């Protein structure tokens, strides 16, 4: 009698534990809808990913491949324009491509993107509120945010002592104005960043449409050119101390500072360009389900935190916050102060005349 009672009351417990055990084995893929996994199997378990170089944790892809048995072909690009060129030229065979707020708009307008199936992306709930339903892609129809960052500049404190523009609040003036660092300045080979810098420094919005503003920016950049050692390859030059100041992406600056603590990042008081990188799926892909699988995987809290910590960019994933490195969280390079954020802007997607104007400015600056 006692035993049967015990069995009776043990039964629900046993059932519960069986359910728990079963669900825990499924837990690894528990955030993936079963119909998604089915489709993935049908699609041949392959995926072509196109991303910025050094913009993902090293173990992300191997772990993804291991968990889902999908073979990932991972290609990288060093400039957004190169990516656009390949994608515009006919996709280049990629399934998933990363694009920032500006380029997502271009891609949407060019009808190169495939709308997302949110049912296949249950981890979307992890996204921070402020990045949900962005203005450049209402409803996250085509894109999922990944990481965001800024484009300020770095300076080598060993050589920039007593520069008034590099005191507690630093200014674009240090790198754009004057001949103090003649021949020791590096600029990234990006017209977006450079023109934005000149515009911010002049007190204008980086998204201005006024020709007069843009002409002022051109003046500044032209005057600066003789002091610029090189456009592009700035990390190399910074490390070798051939340049003392250089424009640089925020995440990259953390790596540089780690190796040379004398180098610091400046989030200029006039404001700087911000960018928010997103994952998108190219239209005409043969593997939409696998692409969704990838995106959903990257939205996992742990995975997102791992990526953010590795590349030192700011995460867009709310659930990942607890796992973000202390050092990054307290680093104004990765998470700038409120004051600077107020002045900083995301880039608009220029087209037509605006784009041509800016391109011409950059051409003139580089060709003279």
């Amino acid at each position, binding site marked *: 009698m006692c035993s049967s009672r015990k069995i009776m009351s043990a039964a629900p417990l046993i059932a519960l534990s069986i359910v728990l055990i079963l669900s825990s084995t499924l837990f690894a893929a528990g955030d993936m809808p079963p119909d998604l996994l089915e489709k993935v199997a049908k699609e041949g378990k392959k995926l072509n990913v196109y991303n910025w170089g050094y913009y993902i944790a090293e173990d992300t892809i191997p772990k993804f491949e291991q968990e889902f048995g999908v073979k990932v072909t991972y290609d990288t690009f060093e400039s957004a324009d190169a990516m656009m060129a390949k994608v515009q030229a006919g996709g280049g065979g990629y399934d998933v491509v990363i694009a920032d707020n500006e380029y997502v708009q271009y891609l949407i307008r060019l009808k190169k993107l495939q709308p997302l199936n949110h049912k296949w992306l249950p981890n979307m709930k992890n996204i921070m509120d402020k990045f949900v339903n962005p203005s450049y892609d209402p409803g996250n129809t085509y894109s999922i945010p990944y990481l965001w960052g800024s484009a300020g500049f770095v300076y080598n404190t060993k050589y920039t002592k007593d520069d008034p523009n590099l005191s507690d609040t630093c200014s674009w003036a240090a790198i754009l104005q004057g001949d103090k660092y003649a021949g020791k300045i590096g600029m990234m080979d990006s017209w977006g960043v450079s023109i934005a810098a000149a515009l911010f420094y002049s007190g204008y919005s980086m998204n201005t449409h006024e020709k007069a503003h843009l002409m002022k920016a051109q003046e500044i950049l032209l005057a600066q050119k003789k002091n610029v*050692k090189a456009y592009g390859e700035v990390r190399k030059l910074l490390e070798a101390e051939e340049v003392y100041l250089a424009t640089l992406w925020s995440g990259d600056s953390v790596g540089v500072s780690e190796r040379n603590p004398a180098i610091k990042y400046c989030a200029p008081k006039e404001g700087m360009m911000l960018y928010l990188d997103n994952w998108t799926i190219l239209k005409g892909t043969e593997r939409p389900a696998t692409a969704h699988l990838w995106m959903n995987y990257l939205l996992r809290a742990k995975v997102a935190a791992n990526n953010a910590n590795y590349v030192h960019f700011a995460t867009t994933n709310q659930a990942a916050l607890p796992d973000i490195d202390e050092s990054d969280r307290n680093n104004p390079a990765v998470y700038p102060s409120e004051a600077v954020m107020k002045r900083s802007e995301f880039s608009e997607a220029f087209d037509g005349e605006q784009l041509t104007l800016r391109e011409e400015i950059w051409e003139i600056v580089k060709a003279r």
Partner: protein
Amino acid sequence: MNYLERKHRFLFFLRRHQPLKICLILSPSVIWVFLFSFIPLLIMIYHSFMTKGPLGQVLHIFTLANYEKLSFLYLGVFWRSIRLAGMTTFFCFIIGYAVAYWIAIYGGRWKNLFIFLIVIPSWSSLLVRIYAWLFLFRDSGIINYLLMQSSLIDSPIPMTFNEVGVLGCLIYTYLPFMILPLYASIARLDQSVLEAALDLGASPFNRLLKVTIPLTKGGIISGVILTFIPAIGEYIIPDLVGGAKVTMMGNLIADKFLSFRNWPLGSAITTALLIIILLLIFVYAKSEKQSGLFEVQES
């Protein structure tokens, strides 16, 4: 019919139809070259007349706007390309002639070895050689380091990321291409002619000017062509050594395709470059026609 008979029938047939034989042998080459060298150029010329869409796409609307844009901005780049290529050719000629002359005349048994040694580096990766050059000449490179250590200079001499650096690297890269044809030409000189010139009272310098150089004209022209023409369109060297500051035609064109997505304009610039180069090749070809690069053997 067995195999032998069939073969003979076939060959007999071919013998009668010379043109068919030629066609058969040449067809793969013609197809490949025509399809993948010639037609792409036509396509590019086509694109040069198209319009760029507002978002960087290509709209198939005919326009001459791209050629109008080849204004003074691009002329500056164009002039720089010609200037740098010209200077490269000039220096390569001076240096190259001296080296080729010495090897041909004084090289002795080791002539072939010397030429071999000069040429081998050009067979390894260009990128690696440029990198090695940069490694040596950068501000933080070995040469500047040694100079500073021995207190000869205070701060590094900038030999990279400027025109001087690009020119130096261009000479370094194209020297073998100048030396080879020069050497081939000088080596074929009749030594007795050279001796006779001296015997007749000419000074070595005069002999160089009035005898040696004119006799090696063919090699000189080949060398100049092989250096000048590719140098105009050089892309990697101004990009890596010039730090994107020294813009030559090659960079301009690549930029248009990879950075700015203005394919029509890029095509227009490329077409302009192509026309110039074809003109130069045409001039060279006409002068070569007499000496016949591709001789025909009557069979």
